């Protein structure tokens, strides 16, 4: 109300210089917020609604291979008739076979282990980069990003060449007499962990680096002056301050790793059960678009709900901290 009067009064006095500016500012600041929301709406929410809609349908031998298919030409009455055909049968189906549950659990487990090792490898690298002379840092950053210039697929294939029984790693170890029979790494869980940690490592290093680089190192000097050993200074100062980077890095590795399909397919053995492969089976082998959509929706919820709870908790903690 106050705003309305204000704008009215300012409209009555066209001489007031601030009105146009203020309108422009309000508009641009809105626009700045609107763009990411539009992006989310266009590339996340709408596809999600389509997938969710398909997950409520039934398979059919037709184009597209499910029913009902909503068409605007059929009119409103037909639309509501078709709406009634939708149901949650596919979700019930997912609970009836332990396959899906096991696949979810095994995917989360593989992603969690990989994330842990990515952190273990990524932290020292990021720390070293952040402590390196300022002149070196751009080069070091460049080196972390460099692998992206080669196709992801080709890099995974390169790992096949390294890990296979007659591969580079085994040849090296055999010639150094470290082992006397080739290690069977290819087609095991170990190979999947290596593949995921390698592929996603830059996503772990970059947020860690940006958190560590901003850190004020006089804090550590102060801690050491006050009697902290370097190790306890690290755990009391450095690590807590880099926590936002740790969390961001872990999320960036964990989330795509849960749905990973290519690395387990190429490096892993057939016995690896992951949700990506289960989804592939439903979609391509069974041609059951509705069930595969249901699997995808559940996967999304499994990932998004913990993140939202976490963000909510973090926001609360920040408010209390103030």
């Amino acid at each position, binding site marked *: 109300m106050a705003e309305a009067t204000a704008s009215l009064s300012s409209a009555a006095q066209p001489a007031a210089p601030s009105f146009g500016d203020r309108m422009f500012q309000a508009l641009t600041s809105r626009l700045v917020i609107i763009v990411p929301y539009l992006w989310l709406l266009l590339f996340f929410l709408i596809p999600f609604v389509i997938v969710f809609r398909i997950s409520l349908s039934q*398979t059919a*031998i*037709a*184009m*597209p*291979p499910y029913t009902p298919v909503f068409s605007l030409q059929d009119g409103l009455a037909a639309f509501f008739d078709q709406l009634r055909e939708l149901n949650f049968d596919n979700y019930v189906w997912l609970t009836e*076979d*332990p*396959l899906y549950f*096991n*696949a979810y659990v095994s995917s989360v487990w593989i992603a969690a282990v990989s994330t842990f090792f990515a952190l273990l490898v990524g932290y020292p690298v990021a720390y070293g980069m952040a402590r390196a002379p300022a002149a070196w840092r751009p080069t070091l950053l460049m080196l972390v990003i460099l692998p992206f210039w080669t196709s992801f697929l080709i890099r995974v294939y390169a790992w096949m060449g390294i890990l*296979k*029984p*007659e591969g580079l790693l085994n040849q090296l170890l055999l010639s150094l007499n470290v082992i006397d029979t080739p290690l069977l790494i290819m*087609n095991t869980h170990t190979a999947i962990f290596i593949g995921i940690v390698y592929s996603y490592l830059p996503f772990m290093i970059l947020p860690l680096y940006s958190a560590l680089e901003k850190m004020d190192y006089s804090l550590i000097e102060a801690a050491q002056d006050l009697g902290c050993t370097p190790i306890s200074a690290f755990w009391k100062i450095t690590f807590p301050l880099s926590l936002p980077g740790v969390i961001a890095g872990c999320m960036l590795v964990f989330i795509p790793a849960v749905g990973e399909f290519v690395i387990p397919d190429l490096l892993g*053995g*057939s*016995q*690896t*059960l992951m949700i990506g492969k*289960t989804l592939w*089976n439903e*979609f*391509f*082998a*069974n*041609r*059951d678009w509705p069930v595969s959509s249901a699997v995808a929706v559940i996967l999304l919820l499994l990932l998004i709900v913990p993140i939202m709870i976490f963000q909510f908790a973090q926001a609360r903690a920040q408010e209390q901290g103030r």
Partner: protein
Amino acid sequence: MKKKLSLLSTATVIATMMAGAAFAQERVVNVYNWSDYIDESIVQDFTKETGIKVVYDVFDSNELLETKLLAGGSGYDVVVPTGNFLARQIQAGVFQKLDKSKLPNLANMWDVVSERTAKYDPGNEYSINYMWGTVGIGYNQKKVQEALGIDKIDSWDVVFNPEKLAKLADCGVYILDSPTDIIPTTFKYLGIDTESTSPEDIAKAEEALLKIRPYVRKFHSSEYINALANGDICLAIGWSGDVFQARDRAAEADQGVIVDYVIPSEGAEMWFDQLAIPADAKNIEEAHEFLNYMMKPEVAAKATNYIYFPNGNKASQAFIDKEIIDDPAIYPDEATLAKLFTVSPYDPKTQRLITRSWTKVVTGQ
């Protein structure tokens, strides 16, 4: 891979060449075929002869092709699905009937193949055969000789007898990750009707496969080509042409690896890759001309001479290289041909059952 790349680049060259010469009405046909599946000069010759530009694109799995077709608006005028996929796609309304008046070269086709493809496409109304093949055993002669003491494999027993397969486990066994091929093959070994869809029979096949599972290194549908060629593994259940590709690569590399392919004496599955025109194709006239061209005896023979798969064109056999037409592993003799079986497409319920059984075999879940 190299072949695939050069193929793609040729297609691009043709495309740009033709784009440069684009006059008023340019005639185009969009072809979507399996990777490594044509002699590229056939495509060039077709353009030279008819003036129709070919946009040639490749895929590597029936599932991928099917998804594109079912989603609609694929933009392709000629596609090459395998028989049992084709059957279901016809039912879904993916294809249009061929205008046989525009396909005079149909007279060249081989009845031995056409009567079998009619199972998927009754009356061959929607498709013509491009290539066919079998699902058999590819193996490394020397390693199998060392492990089992036999010169030649001639029975599925080597695979399905756990005691025998156990001896091959260390040097490596691959099986196609394709339940619709392997389960009927298992039926054949167990003496069950290969067309069976009963849950009990599927359970029996599952049990037989679980017994040999510990000795299988991986279920995969393409890695075995390189693995066989490099000598990384000693046995694979695979598609005939793929094993021949491995055989050729091994011979080229000349590292002492000799790969052989056998259609076991019990019989094996026979499959067919069919040329068909999607219902929503834009260049129907050109698609028919392409199909008719592919059925010319010299052209079909050229294709077979290049990729080592047998084709369904009787008249072409006069032009096929002697080493191919006389190789019973490629062109089986009458007696072997009689033992080959075909598999009908599964209804959704059976398909789900088979996929589920397969997941259990492959992952133990």
